């Protein structure tokens, strides 16, 4: 835990992430390349869904990241609120657009997978619906940062929203599940994909690894940018103050 607290120092954080970034980049590139090869070429087509099952290899890792990054955002927000770590707030802020991006990918790829599978571009399936709400929560979080002039207060307001939203995510999931099963009396909805066969599971896990490494990479770059921008506005503010006669 002491090690984690040491990260609260922006300079240390930047040094640590500087070291990690090239490794994440390498891992992401390798894993994604391997995943693409295994998923697009090696893996067999599904006997029911045909080639569209390959969409799973980008859809599922994105969905995992959509939820994972929101969880990370909530955790970072909580530590920002509890311990007032300056880095924690900025880390949460950095995760948001990345999380929103992967949520968008999950929605788009889900839709493209759903059209040949279910015959509709959009269905109010429990998963798609709760992911859509998750997307709205990300947008609200980013909007709050924008709306506040004072970044310190903005950080705390955003943190509160992230935590409230985090409680809402399982509630939405549960309520939509309930609603969905009630509104679908007789029809058979083939949830998810085929039974997870190793020839499908392996590319999926490798792609997921690549995507996670990629997400970590981009979050670290964004966080470094946010730290630089905070220092920049602090310096500018100090200058403006010292110039006033």
């Amino acid at each position, binding site marked *: 835990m002491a090690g984690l607290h040491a990260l609260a120092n922006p300079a240390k954080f930047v040094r640590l992430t500087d070291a990690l970034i090239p490794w994440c980049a390498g891992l992401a590139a390798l894993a994604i390349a391997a995943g693409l090869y295994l998923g697009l070429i090696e893996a067999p087509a599904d006997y029911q869904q045909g080639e569209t099952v390959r969409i799973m290899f980008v859809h599922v890792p994105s969905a995992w990241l959509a939820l994972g990054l929101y969880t990370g955002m909530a955790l970072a927000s909580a530590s920002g609120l509890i311990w007032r770590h300056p880095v924690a707030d900025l880390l949460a802020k950095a995760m948001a657009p990345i999380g929103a991006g992967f949520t968008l*990918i999950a929605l788009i790829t889900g839709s493209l997978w759903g059209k040949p599978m279910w015959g509709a571009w959009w269905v109010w399936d429990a998963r798609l619906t709760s992911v859509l709400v998750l997307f709205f929560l990300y947008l609200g979080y980013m909007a709050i940062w924008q709306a506040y002039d004072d970044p310190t207060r903005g950080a705390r307001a955003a943190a509160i929203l992230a935590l409230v939203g985090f409680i809402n995510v399982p509630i939405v999931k549960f309520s939509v599940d309930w609603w969905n099963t009630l509104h679908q009396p007789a029809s058979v909805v083939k949830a998810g994909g085929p039974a997870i066969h190793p020839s499908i599971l392996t590319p999926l896990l490798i792609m997921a690894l690549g995507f996670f490494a990629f997400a970590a990479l*981009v979050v670290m*770059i*964004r966080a470094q*940018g946010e730290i630089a921008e905070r220092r920049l506005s602090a310096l500018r503010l100090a200058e403006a103050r010292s110039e006033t006669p």
Partner: protein
Amino acid sequence: MSEFFAMGGYAGFVWSAYGATALVMVGLLIWSWRSRKAAEAALQQLEEARRGP
């Protein structure tokens, strides 16, 4: 080879999905990279100005 691209007739769906994914991921990376670069450049400029001539 053309069979690969045809994806059993589902080419539009599969390639759009992969394309959209690549677009968003690369877009996020480029955007974050450029934001960081701009902030660090401005920061460096400001710190040099403060150090004075």
